[in-house]
């Protein structure tokens, strides 16, 4: 799928596309070969990074952009992923945020999210 076809999903997030989202998307696409799900995973990874989850809290405006990435990723999963994948992604975010709250180390985000695609197999 071309970037043009993904455009509605990237509305408001164009700057992020050139600022790392494209590379993240490519990495997930190589693993899952399903553009909308790869974009969902990329949005969630970038969203978590923008928010500063588990590290230094992002300033408010950056947090809001991170929230939008998470929400858009979540909506893509709701519309295009099987239930098992939706649940796995949600559980990954739950794990990352609970570790962050407890100030404990968390597994690498990308590995965790790539594992969440297990439900596709």
């Amino acid at each position, binding site marked *: 799928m071309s970037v043009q076809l993904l455009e509605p999903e990237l509305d408001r997030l164009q700057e992020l596309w050139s600022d790392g989202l494209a590379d993240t998307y490519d990495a997930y696409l190589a693993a899952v070969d399903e553009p909308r799900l790869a974009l969902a995973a990329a949005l969630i990874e970038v969203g978590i990074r923008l928010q*500063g*989850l588990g590290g230094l809290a992002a300033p408010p405006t950056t947090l809001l952009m991170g929230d939008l990435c998470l*929400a858009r990723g979540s909506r893509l999963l709701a519309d295009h992923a099987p239930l098992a994948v939706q649940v796995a992604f*949600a559980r990954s975010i739950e794990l990352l945020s609970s570790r962050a709250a407890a100030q404990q180390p968390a597994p690498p985000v990308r590995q965790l999210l790539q594992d969440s695609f297990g439900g596709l197999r």
Partner: protein
Amino acid sequence: MSTHRLEFATTRSTEFVDITPRLQEEVRQAGLRNGRIHLQSLHTTLGLAINENEPLLLRDFQGLLEKLAPAGAGYEHDNFERRLEITAGEPVNGHAHCRQLLLSAFATLLVEDGNLVLGRWQSVFAVELDGPRHRQLAMQLEGEFAQQRDTAESLVEVELARQLMVDPEPIAGPMRRLVEAGGKRLRPRLVQLTSGIGPRNDPLRAAELAAAVELLHNATLVHDDYVDESTQRRGRPTVAAKEGAARAIAVGDYYFAKATRLIAQIGNPGVTSEVADALEAICASQIDDVALRGSYPGDRDSYMRVIRGKTASLFAAACASGALLSGANEEVVGALRRYGDLLGTAFQMADDVIDFSPSSGKPVGQDVRQRVLSLPLIYAAEDRVVGPEVRRLLAGTLGDAEVGLVTELVTSTDALPRVREEAQALVDAAVRELEAVELDGLRPVLAGIARLAVDRAS
């Protein structure tokens, strides 16, 4: 016997805070039918009084207190050289203590048929004598309580408690404090009501969905409070204020993910998509909201766009998802979605009006202080007479004095009644949406909720 603390913030040195609506709400929530409500001030410079809520009369009271115990009249209490155990920041407030002696620290009110027994002109005031401060009243309700709380509401509370019980404490603790602090629970109520419309009425699944929607709403509030730099929510410190921004982000994210998972696991794709769309609208509108603060107070069109995303979208999703869960037909789902959208918009407008009311339980002008979009402010800024002054004040630094002035200017225009009228018109439109579809006797309840959502004091 039911025991509570009534918390509120005052904004001026002397202030008559009308707590009557909040007491009535406490009586309703406790289910007290006939009995008494006992109040006790937990401060030595906060009194209680029952009298008429008439602005000029309140000024007379203030004048009387100032005459009987003037500030700076050489109180021995204010002579720090002679006093023992002076704490840092000790206020010079002998006059406030003396004024409190003229009032009462206690009050007992009677309750009959679920209502406070008050004369036509009587209101209950907490009287601030040394503000602004955060205040608490101890409260005990005793007597005959309703035999059973509404079963549906209980199911949601049980489900919320059950979900919070299984979460890790660093995450669950802050959310539990927020959930237990109350809130109107309008969104879960709408889910439950609309889930009874179609042929697949399942109260347990409806309670799961309702609780998840409430968790999602609360997750957005946790992040909002960090963004808006709010220190209080529902009378308690916000997660960001109490535990820091990093914890607030983690708590918001956790319940954002958990709520979406719980909703997905209900196994109705239509419901999952409905709520996911609403969440996206909320996040996008929140960005617009913050961006628009650069051109504060903005214009009506921008305001409407923001509140429809930020507030109305989850009301609409709550109504539509309940109906979808029950297997209601598309026509009914659509009508309920539009009802929720109109109701949510009216609800937010009513909230804006309440921000200018001293009886809301929140500091007056909080939205102004935080530069949150507000329709009364937009109208006041457009006013031919006071508009230029409102805009001049909003363009500068907003300290207590400026917020007080802006509040006075807004209340001097027709902005508040105008917004109230608009909110009422939206409620009427919401109720009309219900008229074209078959709702199995639910129409009066939904109409009542819509009217109550705008006809409230807090």
